């Protein structure tokens, strides 16, 4: 369970998160929508401790992320994150990209790590690209590799930050399919997305962010069919 309680966060003078409250249960899929600069990415990077917070608490399975005593490297093993920019490691093959962290972080043997990597890569449809270097993959393939790389750590939670935004339109579908598949398998996920149809299809709940505030959260039918907050209505009208 991820519990976010009254989280505030600023960059210099700019307050980017203004008291976020959100609890994500095991197996739940929550998507976050909202305008650019509303603090969506910042929230995700706070959840896995890449960014510090000013006040409030984020607790993952009972561990407070920003407590001094928390071993972030250990905590991050159970929280996978995939960014808009997929960050393939260019000097490693697809297989090596996926085995690196299991081997160096979990101390797994080569054979075991490769076994897991092969399974995950086949899972995202890259079973035939093991020996390829990322430079030879399309954006969609690199993004799916990044997903497999995160999954190889057997995380309990996956965070996705606009994973299709940097892709050519014809490559968006294959990545969304992969996310859908994970959701159906019961992965606990927080997805920041601009793909409204996807948000509607896969989410248990949809949250709308506006200027650092979670203006509204609800089931997809309610958010898309009967938005309560005027800003949500404005936003949905603008993206339709």
């Amino acid at each position, binding site marked *: 369970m991820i519990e976010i309680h009254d989280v505030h966060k600023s960059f210099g003078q700019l307050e980017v998160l203004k008291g976020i409250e959100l609890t994500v249960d095991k197996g739940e899929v929550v998507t976050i929508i909202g305008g650019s600069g509303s603090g969506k990415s910042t929230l995700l990077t706070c959840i896995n401790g890449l960014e510090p917070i000013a006040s409030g608490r984020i607790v993952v399975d009972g561990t407070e992320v920003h407590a001094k005593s928390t071993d972030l*490297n*250990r905590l*991050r093993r159970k929280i996978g994150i995939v*960014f808009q920019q997929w960050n393939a490691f260019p*000097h490693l093959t697809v297989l090596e990209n996926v085995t*690196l*962290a299991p081997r*160096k972080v979990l101390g797994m043997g080569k054979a075991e790590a490769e076994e897991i990597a092969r399974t995950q890569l086949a899972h995202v449809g890259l079973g035939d690209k093991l020996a390829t*270097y990322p430079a030879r993959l399309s954006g969609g393939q690199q993004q799916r590799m990044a997903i497999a790389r995160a999954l190889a750590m057997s995380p309990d939670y996956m965070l996705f930050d606009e994973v299709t935004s940097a892709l050519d339109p014809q490559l968006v579908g294959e990545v969304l399919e992969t996310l859908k598949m994970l959701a159906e398998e019961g992965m606990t996920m927080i997805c920041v997305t601009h793909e409204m149809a996807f948000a509607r299809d896969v989410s248990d709940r949809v949250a709308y962010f506006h200027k650092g505030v979670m203006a509204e959260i609800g089931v997809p039918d309610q958010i898309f069919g009967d938005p309560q907050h005027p800003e949500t209505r404005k936003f949905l009208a603008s993206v339709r």
Partner: protein
Amino acid sequence: MFGYTFQWNQALARLPKMLDGAVVTMEVAVLSMLIGILCAILLTLLRLSGSRSLRAVATGWVEVARNTPALFQIYMAHFGIASFGIHLSPFVSLLIGITFNNAGYLAENFRGALKAIPDTQIRAGRSLGMSQTQAFRYIIVPQMLRISFLPMTNQMVWAVLMTSLGVTVGLNSDLYGVTQDLNALTFRTFELFAIAAVIFYIITKIITLSARLIAARLFRY
């Protein structure tokens, strides 16, 4: 022509001695590169450090190494520090001088290579649970190595050629020193230095060709 008769046989008879000198030249070049790379890594880290004075020391080193003659650097490593009562052998002084020079140039290359790698690579590693050190070692350093490989090869060639400056601090066991001594003995100036030049040329060619082979094996991406 010009009253000079070539006597190649006399000069070639000295080839074994010159090859011994070439071995010393290679020793200095290889050692100065190995130590120079370690120093350059240290300098690169110091230049990223939070301490202003550490950054200043590292930047000073790089600036002097790159903006003053190598001859001056080697001279300082021998006669310069002798003023403070530290007397080093010509071999050690030459080694220190060239190492100083190598480290300065390489540190600048490493810094450029580091800048060319996006921060998001580290972030991706950290997100997978790696420590800062692990991310640096497994993600950044290999990419840095590739970007810096050609400059490192060039520096290695420079290190070989810079050994010829050892004569200025009294070294006479390296290729250039040996050649100069033989010249004083036989006066076969043109022949001896032509042979030395050919040996230098062969050494540097071997370095660049093997570097190319290593690069082809190492960097497949």
